[in-house]
């Protein structure tokens, strides 16, 4: 998998953080770590198996920095990537970080809360990726706002940690909370994240 094939984006992002928001360095560096790459690798390798249409559209919810997710989706044929996250500064960094990918796909960013701003989010998409289900209410209600047939890749931690308000006690509880019934994959990843893929 090619991550950030244009390193200018990474340099621009680091430069922007250094100059304007140095207090975000720690969490940006954390997002660059190997464990984050592995999490994204774990879901991205399923993309060829999902029978998605050519140049499929995808929403990334609460995805933070798109260091690994956006390159993975572009590599696997996405035509439109829309990122929704309520962190304004993450969007500012992503704009620079992902500059090379804006030439390859239609890349949108919206600073919005997936739960409370859902009515303004375009849910007419082929794929939804949410790797932070632990940070929001059960996904079932959000899923219900999407068109039938939308494929979901959902991950959530099973560890109690700051900001994790929804930590299921088991994989079954996690899957139940997502509302996914047509399951293509459900399991616990090596990094102790639950993952479910399906419709």
């Amino acid at each position, binding site marked *: 998998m090619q991550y950030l094939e244009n390193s200018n984006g990474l340099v621009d992002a680091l430069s922007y953080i250094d100059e304007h*928001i*140095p*207090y*975000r360095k*720690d*969490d940006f560096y954390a997002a660059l770590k190997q464990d984050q790459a592995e999490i994204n690798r774990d879901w991205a390798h399923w993309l060829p198996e999902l029978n998605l249409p050519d140049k499929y559209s995808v929403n990334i919810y*609460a995805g*933070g920095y798109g260091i690994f997710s956006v390159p993975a989706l572009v590599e696997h044929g996405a035509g439109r990537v829309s990122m929704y*996250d*309520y*962190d*304004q*500064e*993450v969007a500012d960094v992503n704009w620079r970080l992902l500059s090379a990918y804006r030439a390859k796909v239609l890349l949108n960013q*919206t*600073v*919005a*809360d997936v*739960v*409370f*701003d859902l009515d*303004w989010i375009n849910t007419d998409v082929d794929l939804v990726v949410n790797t932070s289900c632990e*940070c*929001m*209410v059960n996904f079932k*209600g959000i899923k219900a706002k999407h068109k039938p047939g939308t494929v979901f890749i959902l991950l959530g931690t099973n*560890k*109690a*940690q*700051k*900001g*994790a*308000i*929804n930590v299921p006690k088991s994989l079954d509880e996690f899957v139940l909370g997502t509302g996914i019934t047509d399951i293509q994959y459900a399991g616990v990843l090596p990094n102790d994240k639950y993952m479910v893929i399906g419709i």
Partner: protein
Amino acid sequence: MTNRIVTCRWGTVYTDEHVSKLYDQITKHCTVPFEFHVFDNLDDPRWKAAQRQHFRGSDDPDMRAQGEWSAYERDDCGGLTHYRKLLMFAHDTDAYPIQGTSKWEVTDWAPDDVILYLDLDTLITGDLSYFFDLDHSKPWIVKSYWFDGLREQGEWQRQFHLRRCPYFNSSVLTWTPGQNRPIYDLVNENLDDVFFTYGVNDNFMFHLFGPWTYDETRREHFNVYPEGVVSSYLYTPDVPGIITSLEGMSMSQKEEVMSCST
């Protein structure tokens, strides 16, 4: 136009004596005419049920300090502490039932009345007329400026995605009747989502009515009082604000401070 000073009381932590002490401070420090109103045991059974259903902590859901529950902190426990304050935003224009009776309290307040809300553990040291002379085209709330000195720069931005580190402090609010109704409505129409997601009412308002809010009709809902109008007894003891917040102090510490001030 009437100047209204209001407070909220529920539960057993605060008593009639606390209300009397606050009223005494107000009469001592307010140089303009006003009417005083206590929202006593204001509640809504649907909201109360939502708090019970979604609170994931182990202590009193209305206590900001919370015993640790696993690795969680109060911010992560859901249950929207002090939600009763938000009920004021509907009942400044609507009547509400008086708890334990079959009577209703009528709040037939005029649209141009100005409401100043004060927490019961507020320390007043300056003239409250300041708050009635503000531009009331938008509501006002306290910004916790003292976090700037306490914590690293960018603390609230860094913690925003964790739904904590609020820059809003609702211990002192100013608004006109109906002006904060969108806050009440958002909670009332999304009870489960709000009570599941937010542990602290000030975090809720900072997230969904603050500077980074997506919805333009909600973004920057409040003006914030200039620095020094409301100070913190704990964090900025040398700043002589009109009002001193006792935020972050234990109940016994607050009692000690308040008894010395009267």
